[in-house]
């Protein structure tokens, strides 16, 4: 059975580590922005007309003319009380912008994460089982090429083929510009989701397929696998009973560890398809000096990546029966 006490201890340790990490990420990103030529107050003022009392408030928020340590503490205090500031581009509180954009991106990321995971696993099992045949070679070539391909270029190719050449999908945009997101019909929205999700899926397949293939080949050379073969098991039953059972968990763990790459891919894909998600918000925040939004996105992306790693850790340490048994006896 899963040891509840051990899990609680493990999670407690992870949460403390996470808190420290988060503080460091917050400080680090703030220092980086502080080093940059961007002045958050000036960027704000140059973008809209504001009264002197508003400027004073902004200067107090950013701690202008104060030493970096005071600024840092000031900023950290603001963040910890949940005050992320107001976005310059969207003119709304940063938290609101992020929650809206992150939801849109999460749907995109989640769907492509699931599709690429399942597809990659199937391809990996096929390639491993049919080792050194044309299936294996085709999967390998596909994976190697996609691993070396720039994400945004694949996205451009997908646009060229499916939107322009075949004309199946709209060229760009998650929702028509100017329309409110709740007035857009579900189908309209789905039509805009398919291509970005498709692009991210075919790109995400590569690493998981190669990993699964290698793992399966490793399992196929073990004694218990050989013994099962000697008993007369073969084909799909053999793979299902002795192969997949052993490689599924490591593969899922790997898929959870890929959150960081998934986020990076989403930023690029959203930019090409003009999908109004967190990636596009991050890029426009960076280009238009929207400091509060950019810092907010960095913090939330760090949380996102950490959650992925944490789930992978839990799977690895507590769900895998072999490691669980090993720790109990050891």
């Amino acid at each position, binding site marked *: 059975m899963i040891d509840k006490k051990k899990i609680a201890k493990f999670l407690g340790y992870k949460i403390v580590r996470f808190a420290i*990490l988060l503080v*460091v*990420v917050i400080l*680090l*990103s703030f220092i*980086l*922005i502080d*080093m*940059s*030529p*961007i002045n958050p107050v000036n960027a704000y003022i140059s973008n809209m007309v504001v009264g002197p009392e508003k400027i004073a408030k902004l200067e107090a928020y950013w701690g202008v003319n104060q030493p970096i340590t005071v600024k840092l503490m000031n900023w950290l205090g603001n963040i910890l009380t949940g005050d992320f500031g107001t976005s310059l581009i969207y003119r709304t509180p940063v938290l609101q912008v992020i929650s809206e954009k992150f939801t849109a991106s999460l749907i995109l990321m989640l769907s492509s994460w699931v599709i690429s995971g399942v597809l990659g696993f199937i391809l990996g099992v096929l390639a491993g089982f049919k080792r050194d045949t044309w299936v294996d070679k085709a999967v390998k070539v596909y994976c*190697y*090429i996609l691993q*070396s*391909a*720039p*994400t*945004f*270029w694949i996205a*451009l*190719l997908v*646009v*060229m083929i499916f939107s*322009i*050449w075949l004309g199946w999908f709209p*060229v760009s945009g998650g929702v028509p510009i100017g329309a409110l997101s709740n007035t857009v019909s579900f189908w309209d929205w789905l039509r805009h989701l398919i291509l970005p999700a498709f692009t991210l899926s075919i790109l995400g397949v590569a690493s998981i397929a190669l990993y699964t293939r290698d793992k399966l080949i490793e399992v196929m050379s073990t004694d218990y696998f050989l013994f099962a073969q000697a008993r007369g098991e073969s084909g799909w039953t053999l793979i299902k009973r002795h192969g997949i059972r052993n490689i599924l968990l490591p593969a899922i763990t790997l898929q959870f560890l890929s959150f*960081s*790459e998934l*986020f*990076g891919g989403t*930023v*690029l894909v959203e*930019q*090409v398809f003009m999908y109004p998600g967190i990636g596009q918000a*991050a*890029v426009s925040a*960076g*280009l238009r000096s929207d400091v509060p939004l*950019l810092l907010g*996105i*960095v913090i939330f*992306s*760090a949380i996102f*990546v*950490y959650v992925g*790693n944490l789930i992978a850790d839990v799977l690895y340490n507590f769900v895998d029966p072999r490691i669980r048994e090993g720790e109990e006896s050891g």
Partner: protein
Amino acid sequence: MDKSVNKTNKFDILGSMNLRTKTLLAIGLSVFILVLVVIISFFIDPSSITTDWSVMNKPPSLEHLFGTDWMGRDMFTRTLKGLGLSVQIGFFASVLSSIIAVALAFLSSFNKYLDSFVSWLIDVFLSIPHLLLIVLISIALGGGAFGVLVGVAFTHWTSLARVLRAEIKRIKTSEFVTISEELGKSKFWIARKQILPLVFSQVIVGTILIFPHAIMHEASVTFLGFGLSPHEPAIGIILSESMKYLATGNWWLALFPGLSLLILVLLFDIAGENIKKMLDPASAND
């Protein structure tokens, strides 16, 4: 190899080679092409990429292999120049990255506090998505080639640092290091004379394998608009410009420059993997 036995056609040259010769051939060919690209791009005079309104938006032809853009510039020349630029930035970024990795790996070997500090630092750098961190660093340094270079360098050292850290730990348990310690040699002396020569080949391979990632990340960040300035003929710039002309059917503007970048990255991967096999023959059986 086993297939080549019953083949008696002209491909038998490949079949008759042993693995070592094949590996050397792969390294030689890929390095040759890469060097060729860099040299050619170095000799392309920027003024030769002139605007010529008479040949606007021409699809690929023998005269213009990759077609021309909306200003009549030859895309083949622009792409080559961009590839050269990518290799240059990739080179400096991966060398800088390796230096950081080596320095931190040695730092971690000095005592156990520094060791946990370094592994914690690796965690911190892995916790922010790479792309976002590069953008942040690039903004902090005011953008431009320097910003991207430092950004890429500061995000790609983690994997090499991990490998080196484990390797150095292993070497430190060996007898010759223990003896040197008993003889009173300084930690610096041991690091320089006994550990560095042993991990040197791994550092070289690590640097080459960072290259493809560095090039791709540079292109991605430039594509997003944070990297090189729009006047530079970088691949990221070319592709982000091409986005505006895709709807009008100018497919060659995006296809060929991206494909060239893909081939460049693949060549670096092939060169790196094969050099790894040469320097560390045990890995050739994987």
